[in-house]
């Protein structure tokens, strides 16, 4: 090969190695948008932690009380919102009562939206079948205080109604009146604290959902301290699959698949250029 051709190849490798990031952005945008517009319909399979959570809620006796914590904010609503919807619908379908609360300020508003949407199509009534206690700052301390008394930590619901006026809350005083604790968590305070206190100290069964990025951190608790876990949008889609009700998460699976594949492809290409470049440097060094 002539020296000019070698120089040209070297220039191309260097250019591709330092490719303008906007080109990568365009590929990622296309990888997300195209599958959303034209779904591929890739088959989905549920994982053991998702199945375990589904089974746990499915096997609770009718009328059981589920305490559901909305410990996330709008940034992670795309992952945790579909989970909350699917689980709430499952609870309503099975006739369970749901008590919602939030340790994150914005979680209370998101809980309200999820309750409203999930309640559509079910003959459930606020205050009787479900309540939203709103937000309380304090994280771990709030979780622990519920073991003593619900009404001391949450004397009013999200709209300022005293909880003794809500029929559902008249029989719920402490964790002893709760059948299952479910935490939807995007960070701290979140699911690890519910496991530590509600499960560890008060012996309640705890399950939950989390963002995909925090799922590895929660796997060590499964299945003994955490009866089931939904990880990220895939976890939400798995729950929808188990419910046999396709929702937002299932619709997003193709986009997530192609985006993941695009990132893997970029990493592979980046490594190819890295090895070409390193091999060339070694050869250049040997010549010197």
């Amino acid at each position, binding site marked *: 090969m002539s020296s000019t051709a070698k120089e040209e190849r070297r220039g191309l490798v260097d250019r591709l190695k330092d*490719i303008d*990031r906007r080109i*990568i*952005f365009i*590929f*990622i*945008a296309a990888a*997300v948008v195209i599958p959303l517009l034209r779904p591929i319909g*890739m*088959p*989905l*399979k549920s*994982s*053991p932690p998702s199945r375990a959570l589904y089974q746990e809620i499915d096997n609770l006796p009718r009328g059981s009380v589920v305490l559901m914590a909305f410990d996330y*904010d*709008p*940034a992670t*609503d*795309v992952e945790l919102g579909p989970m909350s919807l699917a689980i709430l619908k499952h609870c309503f379908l099975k006739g369970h009562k749901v008590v919602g609360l939030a340790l994150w*300020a*914005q979680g209370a*508003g*998101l809980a*309200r*939206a999820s309750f*409203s949407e999930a309640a559509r199509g079910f003959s459930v009534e606020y205050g009787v079948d479900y309540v939203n206690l709103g937000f*309380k*700052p*304090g*994280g771990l*301390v709030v979780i*622990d*205080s519920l073991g*003593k008394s619900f009404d001391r*930590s949450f004397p009013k619901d*999200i*709209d*300022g109604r005293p909880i003794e006026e809500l029929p559902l809350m008249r029989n719920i005083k402490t964790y002893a009146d709760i059948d299952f604790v479910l935490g939807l968590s995007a960070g701290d305070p979140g699911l690890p604290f519910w496991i530590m206190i509600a499960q560890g100290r008060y012996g309640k069964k705890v399950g939950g959902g989390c963002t995909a990025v925090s*799922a*590895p951190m929660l*796997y*060590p608790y499964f299945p003994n301290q955490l009866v089931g876990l939904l*990880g990220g949008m*895939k976890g939400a889609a798995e729950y929808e699959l188990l419910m046999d009700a396709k929702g937002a998460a299932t619709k997003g*699976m*193709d986009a*997530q*698949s*192609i985006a*993941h*594949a*695009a*990132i*893997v492809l*970029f*990493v592979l*290409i*980046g*490594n190819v250029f*890295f090895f070409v470049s390193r091999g060339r440097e070694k050869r250049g060094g040997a010549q010197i």
Partner: protein
Amino acid sequence: MRREIPLIITFVCGLAMIAQFFIPHSPFGGVKDYFQQSYMIIAAFAMLLGIGNLTKLHVGKISEKRPQWGYSVVLLAGLLGMTIPGLFIGGIKEGTIFDFLFKNAFVPMSSTMFALLAFFVASASYRAFRARTVDAALLLIAGFVVMLGRAPIGDYLTWFMPEGWQMSDYANWIMEIPNTAGQRAIMMGAALGVVATSLRVIVGIERSYLGGE
């Protein structure tokens, strides 16, 4: 005394909280309840303090016309735009202005900011995720398997493999076995670190939380 009094308070409170864990009866049980209520009240006031501090900082930035002060105007407009309707115009109930802004402005903008991460992750991994060593190569392979296996495309690409040997099964194995082992080691180490640091704070060896030198 400026340092001694906080140290004494910390020591007494720390010992009381340890005692209540092992003796959950009166008077220690009551001490715990009192501290819990106090903590929740202080946490609520800490939020107010944070809002006050944020406002003061950005008002100062605007009044001194420091670089990029325009962003501070947007921040304060957002703060007031949510706070005033929430406090004075209908509250935070469903169907109020606050609720409308929360659902139609705050939620989509917040999700958009988070979604931008995907672009930066793709760009950064293209440039930085290199198989320079055997360890890095193993991490890279595990990353590929989990990324593809934790999305339907993994099984789509390994459709020819028998049930139980597809990409999602490998991803689940990585999450349940090597990941769990590593995470447990980290968690145990961190827990021991928390115990050691807490003891240092209680007995007054660690004083950085007091500020100053």
